[in-house]
């Protein structure tokens, strides 16, 4: 809480810069004059391709990495100057297999981490049991983590992130390795967290996930904030730029597809294989119909890639691959 009684933003980042030293070369700028604000209770998506700087931002917020310039605050506290007071407020879930003791059981892992957040033994046990239930690992609580599947480890990561009862959660690609059912349960969990008034910063490559979960979505690339949007904008882009993939398509048919209304272009992706990109909602339907009528059965639709959405978001400027 600030002195005026208005709750400080859960996360507030201003002009954040982070350079990494590169052997025999100029430093690499992972974050470049980055700004971000996450309100208390907000679920904020951070969407960006590989190497965009998402993890770097999460690391700076979680106090394990120092910024080169600029400021980052968590509930009004500076992550550098007030790191000690920031840590109890935060829960961090880094994606992947790292960050857990493989030979310990799930429950032992959680109890250990509860203790690092200052909770005594009994409270640690209580939290561990409750959180394992919550992420659906109750029946496997006493099994060693090394016997877990990736998705199960990911759930345990989530439980670990919650063990300190944080006001702000940083989730760095939390659904990596989860099956669609788990990913769906994960969405419910995030809804619960929102309902409990916790702020969530969620990094992902998955646009559908961002659209479904987030109150706002920030687009990051090359360490820069491109846009901060309502996720509906994202949803619109996703449906407007739907793609159709087909194989066994003769050249003449491909030409006919290209002439259909709303078809942006038809790309050959292999012998007889095409990728039809549309730029109007509903344009995929006539494409599908034309293909099926011509006897092509190997057809599928897909949302546009992140790169394409980026192109549409920012126009053709600035998407050159950065060194």
């Amino acid at each position: 809480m600030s002195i005026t009684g208005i709750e400080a933003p859960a996360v507030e980042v201003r002009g954040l810069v982070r350079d990494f030293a590169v052997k025999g070369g100029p430093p690499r700028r992972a974050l470049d004059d980055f700004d971000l604000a996450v309100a208390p209770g907000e679920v904020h998506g951070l969407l960006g391709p590989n190497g965009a700087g998402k993890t770097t931002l999460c690391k700076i917020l979680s106090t394990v990495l120092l910024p080169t310039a600029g400021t980052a605050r968590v509930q009004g506290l500076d992550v550098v100057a007030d790191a000690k007071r920031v840590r109890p407020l935060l829960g961090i879930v880094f994606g992947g297999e790292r960050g857990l003791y493989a030979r310990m059981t799930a429950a032992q892992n959680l109890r250990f981490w509860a203790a690092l957040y200052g909770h005594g033994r009994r409270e640690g046990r209580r939290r561990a049991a409750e959180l394992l239930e919550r992420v659906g690992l109750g029946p496997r609580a006493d099994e060693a983590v090394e016997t877990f599947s990736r998705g199960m480890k990911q759930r345990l990561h989530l439980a670990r992130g919650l063990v300190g009862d944080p006001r702000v959660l940083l989730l760095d690609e939390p659904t990596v390795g989860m099956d669609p059912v788990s990913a769906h349960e994960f969405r419910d969990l995030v809804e619960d967290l929102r309902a409990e008034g916790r702020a969530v910063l969620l990094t992902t490559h998955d646009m559908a996930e961002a659209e479904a979960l987030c109150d706002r979505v920030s687009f990051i690339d090359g360490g820069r904030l491109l846009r901060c949007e309502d996720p509906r904008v994202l949803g619109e882009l996703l449906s407007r730029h739907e793609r159709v993939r087909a194989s066994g398509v003769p050249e003449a048919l491909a030409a006919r597809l290209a002439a259909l209304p709303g078809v942006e272009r038809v790309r050959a992706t292999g012998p007889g294989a095409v990728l039809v990109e549309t730029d109007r909602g509903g344009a995929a339907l006539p494409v599908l119909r034309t293909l099926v009528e011509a006897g092509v059965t190997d057809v599928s639709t897909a949302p546009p890639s992140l790169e394409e959405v980026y192109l549409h978001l920012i126009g053709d400027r600035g998407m050159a691959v950065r060194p």
Partner: protein
Amino acid sequence: MRGSSPAFWAAARFQLGEFRRDPGTLLMLVTAPFFAVILLSVTEHGGRADLAPYAILAPAVMASIGMAVMEAGETIFRDRTAGVLEAVLTTPAPLATVLLGRIAAITAVSLAGIAECWLVGAVGFGVVVHVAHPLVFALTLAATAAGIAATGVLMAAVFVVGRNVRSFQNSLTFPLYLLGGAMVPVALLPSGVEALSRVFFLSWATDLLRDSLAPEPVAAFWPRLAAVLGLAAATFAAGSWLSHRLVRRVRRNGTVGFA
């Protein structure tokens, strides 16, 4: 320090679990009795029964400090490879506290080496070493354990920085055995080396331990115990300070994990 004490105990319990999960960490407790056999054979065969306490203490103390230093390195190395070190740094618990908890548990377990070596003497050689001054012995042992744990924390802090440091942890134990007077009382060392050894708590500790076994009264016990404790505290302070500095450096360079 908010939340320090649960972190200490959790780290200690965790380490005890590690011994069960990976008994290889107890290797030094396996080798210590063999060492005791070798040394006792020499002292007995050489007709120097008066040196039996030396032969029993030396391998036990070496096992203890050796385990603390080796395991401190291993702890950091494994935590860092598993990406756990980074996660620990995001929690409110100070790294030095977590390290101290783990190394304290290692040290407590390593003290079993004394009983092992004593038994080797009693059962294998019929040499029963009496503790002439039990209180002196007990207090010194406790202070020694604290110092060994502090040394482990200091070593672990060094291991936070680099992955290459691991290769020298093994060779590092030998100067510590020497300067700690584990095998040879430091008074017998060249004077320059002895002077250096006096800033290492272990040199005071091993002298006191040996004195506590001998029937002669122990001279200047309290000041010497104070030296052990003071130097142990200084070692922990140095380890704590260094871990703080190194963590900061690692945060600046962005190399906490291996990524």
